[in-house]
């Protein structure tokens, strides 16, 4: 058994709007004249520290929990789940 830190990165799907990201872009970044910035997407990251036999299993455990507890809504969210060795 090893310990893994599983990152769950949740953001709105690419073609769904993201008011928070847009606001940061338009009302903060672009006001500072950073015209090279074209887009900002806001999201949320959760870090699960999990004990599992391997990386894949750690990711599976976290994915199952997220699905069951509806930590994200698969309808709106794009989710990346990846385990890192602690």
């Amino acid at each position: 058994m090893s310990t893994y830190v599983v990152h769950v990165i949740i953001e709105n799907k690419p073609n769904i709007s993201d008011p928070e990201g847009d606001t940061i872009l338009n009302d903060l970044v672009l006001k500072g004249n950073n015209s090279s910035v074209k887009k900002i997407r806001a999201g949320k990251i959760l870090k699960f520290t999990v004990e599992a036999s391997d990386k894949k299993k750690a990711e599976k455990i976290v994915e199952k929990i997220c699905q069951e507890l509806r930590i994200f809504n698969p309808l709106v969210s794009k989710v990346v789940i990846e385990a890192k060795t602690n």
Partner: protein
Amino acid sequence: MSLQKHETKYVKDTIKRKLTKTELQIVAAEWSEHCSYKSSKKHLKMLPTTGPNVILEKGYDSGVLDVGDSYVVTVHIESHNHPSAVEPFGGAATGVGGVIRDILSTGTRPIAILDGLRFGNIENDAHARWLFKNVVSGIADYGNCLGIPTIGGEVEFDDCYKNYALVDVAAIGYGKKDRLIKNHANKGDLVVLIGGPTGRDGIGGSQFASNSLESEDRSAVQIPDPFIEKLIIETILEARNEKCINAMKDLGGGGLSCAISETAESLGIGIELDVDSVHTRESGLSPDEIMISESQERMLIITCKEKLSKLKQICDKFGVTCSTIGHVKDDKMMHVKKGKNTLALLPAEFVARAPLLDRKKTKPKYLKQIKKENKAKKTLDYSKTILKLLSSPNISSKHWVFRQYDHEVGIRTVVKPGFDASVLRLDNGKFLSTKIDGNPKHCYLDPRQGAIGCFEEACRNVVCTGANPIGMVDHLQFGNPEDPEIFWTFMESLEGLTEYAKFLRIPCVGGKVSFYNETPLGPIKPTPLIGVLGIIDKTPFLPVPPNNGDYLIIIGKTRDELGGSEYFEYIHKFIGGICPSVDFKDSKINMLAVLSLIKNKLVKSVHDCSKGGFAIAVSELSIFGNIGCNIDINNMPFVKNLSSEKILFSESHSRYLLVIDQKNIIRVKQFLSKKKISFAVLGKFSGDQINITYKSKNLVKIIVDILRKRYFNGLEDLLKHG
């Protein structure tokens, strides 16, 4: 995304050519049940819509009521059921946004929100709990960000909404009569789209709402942005003051297609627009997508050339994007172009008026199978039953819900949520009382009497605050109307509402019909929802809690009507029995009597008997005063000899409980006798427990403190530990 057979034939006969791809998309969006009301429009005409206070203007999306001193109140109700069932937070929030823009489109400022929420059984269904929590957060987030108070509503749970949600939002606006937008347009006027950019979210949403929810449709989700909405509100109101707006429409279901065709049709004008001028969120949107996108927080404005620069200046001030997308013509055509190419050219009237349907109706078979009596039931201990009912999700206090809402922002809320109806202070010194009510359990057993009952209950709640009902809005929610049995329940409800509205002379000033509310287990129970507005001319009636020595009086007759009651359904798990019906004459004289007692300051508080019946209503009064009550129900006015359980739990209508100070009791009794009202003095408030006796036998004995805990903790405990 297709037309039905008869529609294709109608297109062929009328237009005499094949529709272009864009035209087909536009027509399919506009002719969906959601936008066209093709099943219901013919029948909705039966509702009375005029009255001395009603102001009618073409193209209004909300009802307008004159409240005197050159002020108006506007009201509208909408639902966002399908979107909320798949994305509860965003669906509920955008539902609030949509109805607020309807209020705004008449040129009035939104001042309050009410919401009626319905979910599956949260006691044993985690998904229902997830939907419930997120819908409440969505409404709270959107309303709180906008600074518009959510002042009331109702929440109900029933197995028929499994994996589904009914989210109904009503909004109220307020403004000066002379600042109402008088929708009009002249040739050469400009068509301007303001607000958020158009994107791919919500593509095909209205057709999605017109299909049953069998497979989760994933593209139709809309994302709320309350801060843009707030900016739009301020932009529009300033543009209104600067007289920059000739006509206005909010973009809701059906997006631009719907807004353009309906505006052109109602004003008798033509509109030519270029999709390239629409500001979009992402590049590569096809013209069809632009036409039917349901991106939120957008408004369509018609302004004249001279005012355009002023309008743009106001939009700039608030940082709201606006683009001139077209102009007004006099050919009554809807003309969609991309650069020089014509994509769609159809008569606006043809697009806006779908061929209406005559749906078949037949009396549902299930009604014949419903048992009138519950024979299997066992006798229960009444004290335990009352405690169980008080902590049940449908009856227990909903403070877990309304505490998440800012219900005071704007400092108009005089009577706050948690009582019968909420009361708002208006600038002309009057007060507005509002409530929405529904009851699917009653409506399932008898759609006609059930619907009338919801209407009466909303009136009763408003009357309890001392207000005279002046207008109503209805929201009729049913399953698939192609099923003749479901259509029968719709027609019964509608006819019932019409009959009662005509009797009380309360005009219907707005409403909505939502069909295709189906879950994998079948159609929902008929769920008409009625909102009633009442006006208090002078001082609002603030309920005073009962004190030691105060009398308890009941007005109205109790009947053998346990059907659809919480007692049958929650305690005995029995669906059946006789549904409560409203005696019109009693209903009216009881209302007038209560109003007159309030006006003469003879009552301390008034509470209506509804869910859970008399036993629950009196418990709520005791909890309110934190005081016990000794009651003898022997001389309770009833229609024929009733058993004690029927007296305690029957949900008969037109009943009110009054708390009367000792010094007024003789005058109140004299007044009620003189008016020939059925009433009885049932007992006095004192001590710390509720005692109910019947034929010298003690039926109920509960300490108020225990009642209180059960009532206030029921829902919260369930959500925290469920």
